[in-house]
């Protein structure tokens, strides 16, 4: 089951965006979304879409974001979010969106 919070259509995304997918997996607790979103806001990363569920007993979240306007390099962003995840006790991964698009779509 999926619980999309945002229902924005993908058609409204512009071509100059650099879309990335942030995935979070771990034990549920208070403040996971808050912690991650605060970091993204600080780094000027715009959130386009969030969905979250409990999968196999684990808190599982997927967040689509645009990293184009962030002053930070992609790998620095990924490393920072990795650290934030560690503090929250969850595994956070930031990946460019194409890996999923190519693999899952014809």
């Amino acid at each position, binding site marked *: 089951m*999926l619980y999309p919070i945002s229902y924005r259509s*993908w058609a409204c995304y512009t071509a100059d965006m650099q879309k990335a*997918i942030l*995935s979070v*997996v771990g034990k549920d607790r208070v403040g996971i979304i808050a912690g991650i979103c605060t970091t993204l806001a600080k780094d000027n990363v715009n959130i386009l879409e969030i*969905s*979250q*569920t409990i*999968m196999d007993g684990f808190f*599982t*979240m*997927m967040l*689509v974001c645009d990293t184009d306007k962030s002053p930070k390099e*992609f*790998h620095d962003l*990924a490393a920072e979010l990795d650290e934030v995840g560690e503090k929250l006790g969850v595994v956070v*991964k*930031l*990946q*460019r*969106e*194409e*890996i*999923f*698009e*190519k*693999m*899952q779509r*014809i």
Partner: protein
Amino acid sequence: MIDLREVSETNHMIEKEMLDVRTITMGISLLDCVDSDLEVLKRNIYEKITTTAKDLVAVGKQIEDEYAIPIVNKRISVTPIGLIGGSACKTSEDYAQIAQVLDKAAEEVGVNFIGGFSALPAKGMTRSEELLINAIPQAMALTEHLCASVNIGSTRTGINMDAVKLMGEIIKETAEATKDHDSIGCSKLVVLCNAPDDNPFMAGAFHGVTESDAVINVGVSGPGVIKQALQCVKGKDFTTLCETVKRTAFKVTRLGQLVGQEASKRLGVPFGILDLSLAPTPAVGDSIAEILESMGLEEVGCPGTTAALALLNDQVKKGGIMASSSVGGLSGAFIPVSEDHGMIAAAQSGGLRIEKLEAMTSVCSVGLDMIAIPGDTPASTISGIIADEAAIGMVNQKTTAVRVIPVVGKHVGDTAQFGGLLGYAPIMPVNTKSCKEFIERGGHIPAPIHSFKN
């Protein structure tokens, strides 16, 4: 729109099923380095490689970081040195010097292997190629990153039996030259029939003369992903089995295509081919043998193994072909013994023998690969093994290869340790009846009748 389950599936493949891109291999042409002065030639080669590939490792790392997909190896293949050294190299020692330059260049750019210390005497052998082949034992002993290969036959040319005879002796000499490390030199030396020009996988990688100045070739892997997928269709019929392999191979190949295109764009080097081979590692869960066993075989090597491998090889290609327009190289399933813990276990139990492996090579993508044999195996017997494999390749119009390691001082029951991706291998028994008289004949086995297509 990508959904959460799809994200989760992709990441599960990477994290739990050991999906990775096995190699980004940059092919570099050295044809413009040719000079009659050895020192100039060495300098040209070193400069060409270190300039063209200077960003290869950094770009590979960048892609790894951005997509969170491991790229296990970054490698280089060059034009067969047998074609490059002709006018400068007067002795085998001259070729050994080039081997050292290649090794140094590989070290400088940070790749783990460089392939192309190669000769292509598929029909006849030039003096230059003979010097290079004779330099292989010394070259393997002097270098760490260098891979050598020799193409001794093809469907169009037949088999050069003089080269086959010579290679039996060279493999023995290479084993002797690297005997302090379980004859590891032989693990970086492969004898091929129908060698492709664009193979990104070692030890047989070289940048063929049909290729452009520089090119990026990518090899994907993913035995663990296929195995996991097959476990979900236990007991189902073959149509379901084939469909599952195909769908999974499609996804794995798309990943390779993405990485190849990205690497090509960032390096400013054209994208060549995607080799959709299933390449195992010694890690549990990353094994071709496990895939075959999950199809319903008690242990790889038992009756049914060849059929299972044929099915796997074919479905991987069918799934992969649709995922990429640039499929090339070897593409299929590799069955290296020392690099696959399931194969190692079957060899140790005695259920998997060289004769069965030989049958398997007629339906998989390469040949007898990473097989440790007794150190006292005669050179003529090794030549016989090479001739058998080459015959399979020549008649069936496919690539076959032999990478056997006659481990000096070791016998059946012992184990050879190669380390890292090369793994470890039990010494497998070899038929001790002699084929010396057959090999001693020399000359050429003509091309098969079906090669006459014109």
